């Protein structure tokens, strides 16, 4: 497949404006300015593009919720990319920042926004620098600012750096953070389309989502929807890490089978060992086992088997992996990132981590596995935002397939996988 999102991945200097324009860049903006707002929104609807930030919400539909008569409106690009196992947005930002800017200009025009923000996680200092440089170049060429390309449309794009809070990837926490508050989620409804940044209509889209827009404008919705799965068309970035021979970022048609991603593209399991489990969409997504590997990697197919596409972060674990340790590390992440707003998540994730830690360290008590299941049941469905539920989904995914291993740890004070439970820091 021709690369759409990663065409500049191996092109040194591809991130500069000159190279981007030489490759046909910013033609889509010119085209879009001729088409008009409603036409663009219809094209994005017809393309079938669904949000790549995790939830898979139809992008054109989201844009159409923006009320016409309220001003100002905002576009926010979600570049918080904190889901462990995920590094796709970083790839676009570092290698092709103008692709994102072009998508943002078109999206802003379509929804009638004249200010847009890129919320980038603080750790991506290099990415922020790339964006600042790209934005500066775009202003100099009249692609940003007042009356872009001589049209009556004006748009400013600003970079807002996060500073270490996974929860700011949740769209309403992201808005709080831009406004200068702690990044804690807001109650929904009202949804951001009605009451978003500074209380004004706001669209929040992921980096990868927005980067699909220029090619939809240029090649048409039919072209886009002919790629990938019927119900989730288009190209998709898959991030593969863990025990594989060729970890990396792969652009493939949405719905590529997980087996093909792991064995063909990522080169199979390292050292010729066997696969034990794969997380398909960032650590929140419940893990899968060998017999589930033929699943097409799209929103609906993964949901059908009880997992999710999430961020497209594929983490591969071979047969030497201790599942208790994996579950402990994942859960420790959630308790660290719990924003503290609601009790089930704040207290529950900490408790889960404590219990997992003692099981991992060979200090588990009889009944600990049941205790974990009980805590899960008390968190699930009772949290203010999806983070708490996500922690439960991840742990349930591990327990569903590897409950015996947890029980073995508790009973024998050591690991079935490696014959020794080991302290943190001694993985092998």
């Amino acid at each position, binding site marked *: 497949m021709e690369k759409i999102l990663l065409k500049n991945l191996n092109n040194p200097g591809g991130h500069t404006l000159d190279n981007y324009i030489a490759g046909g860049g910013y033609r889509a903006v010119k085209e879009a300015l001729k088409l008009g707002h409603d036409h663009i929104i219809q094209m994005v609807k017809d393309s079938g593009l669904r949000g790549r930030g995790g939830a898979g919400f139809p992008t054109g539909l989201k844009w159409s919720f923006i009320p016409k008569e309220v001003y100002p409106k905002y576009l926010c690009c979600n570049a918080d990319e904190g889901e462990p196992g995920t590094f796709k947005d970083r790839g676009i930002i570092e290698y092709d920042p103008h692709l994102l800017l072009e998508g943002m200009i078109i999206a802003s025009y379509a929804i009638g926004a004249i200010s847009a923000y890129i919320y980038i996680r*603080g750790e991506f200092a290099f990415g922020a620098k790339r964006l600042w440089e790209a934005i500066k170049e775009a202003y100099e060429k009249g692609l940003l600012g007042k009356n872009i390309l001589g049209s009556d449309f004006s748009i400013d794009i600003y970079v807002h750096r996060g500073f270490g809070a996974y929860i700011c990837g949740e769209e309403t926490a992201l808005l709080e953070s831009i406004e200068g508050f702690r990044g804690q989620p807001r109650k929904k409804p009202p949804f951001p389309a009605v009451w978003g940044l500074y209380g004004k209509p706001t669209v929040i889209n992921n980096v990868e989502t927005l980067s699909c827009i220029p090619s939809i404008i240029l090649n048409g919705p039919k072209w886009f929807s002919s790629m990938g799965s019927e119900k989730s068309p288009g190209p998709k970035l898959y991030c593969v890490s*863990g025990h594989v021979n060729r970890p990396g970022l792969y652009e493939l048609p949405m719905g590529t089978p997980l087996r093909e991603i792991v064995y063909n593209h990522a080169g199979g399991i390292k050292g010729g060992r066997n696969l034990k489990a794969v997380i398909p969409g960032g650590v929140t997504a419940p893990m899968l086992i060998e017999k589930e590997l033929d699943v097409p990697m799209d929103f609906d197919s993964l949901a059908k088997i009880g997992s999710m596409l999430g961020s497209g972060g594929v983490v591969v674990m071979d047969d030497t992996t201790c599942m208790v340790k994996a579950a402990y590390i994942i859960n420790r992440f959630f308790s660290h990132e719990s924003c503290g707003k609601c009790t089930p998540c704040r207290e529950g994730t900490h408790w889960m981590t404590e219990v997992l830690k003692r099981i991992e360290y060979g200090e588990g008590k009889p009944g600990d596995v049941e205790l974990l299941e009980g805590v899960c049941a008390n968190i699930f469905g009772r949290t203010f935002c999806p983070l708490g539920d996500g922690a439960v989904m991840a742990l349930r995914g591990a327990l569903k397939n590897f409950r015996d291993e947890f029980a073995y740890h508790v009973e024998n004070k050591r690991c079935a996988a490696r014959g020794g439970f080991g302290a943190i820091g001694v993985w092998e």
Partner: protein
Amino acid sequence: MLSEKVRGEIRGVLRNYKNLRSACMAALQIIQREAGHITEADMSDVASLLGVNPVQVEEVGAFYTMYNVRKPVGRHHIQVCTNLSCSLLGAGHIVNFIERLLKIKTGGTTQDKRFTLSTVECLGSCATAPMMQVDEDYYENLTEERINEILDGLK
């Protein structure tokens, strides 16, 4: 007291936002970049620049984990990712190795104030695990040898 340079930079970001308070995160980032950490006095200076209560600045400083509030760090801040993908490929060994090399525990600072060592959650560089961030830079595909080289180069 904030330097004129820092004040100027903070004033520069104010126009990115609809209200002053929105510049709070950026203001603290500018201060930390210059000084390595953020003091009580910095926070009240930011508060008066932005016309908010100092506790509102403090709140932001405390919530976001990258701010070193009232917590001086060494000249170089080593942050090793210990999330899943990195741990699968030996992040634990990397942490242990650096602890032994610098004779400090995670969270500690060397006596000469050259290095502080922390562990952090996923840094979005999982395909090049194990990895760490030192100050603003990423160092990937770490081995003991590479770490020796990298740390030797940071004075």
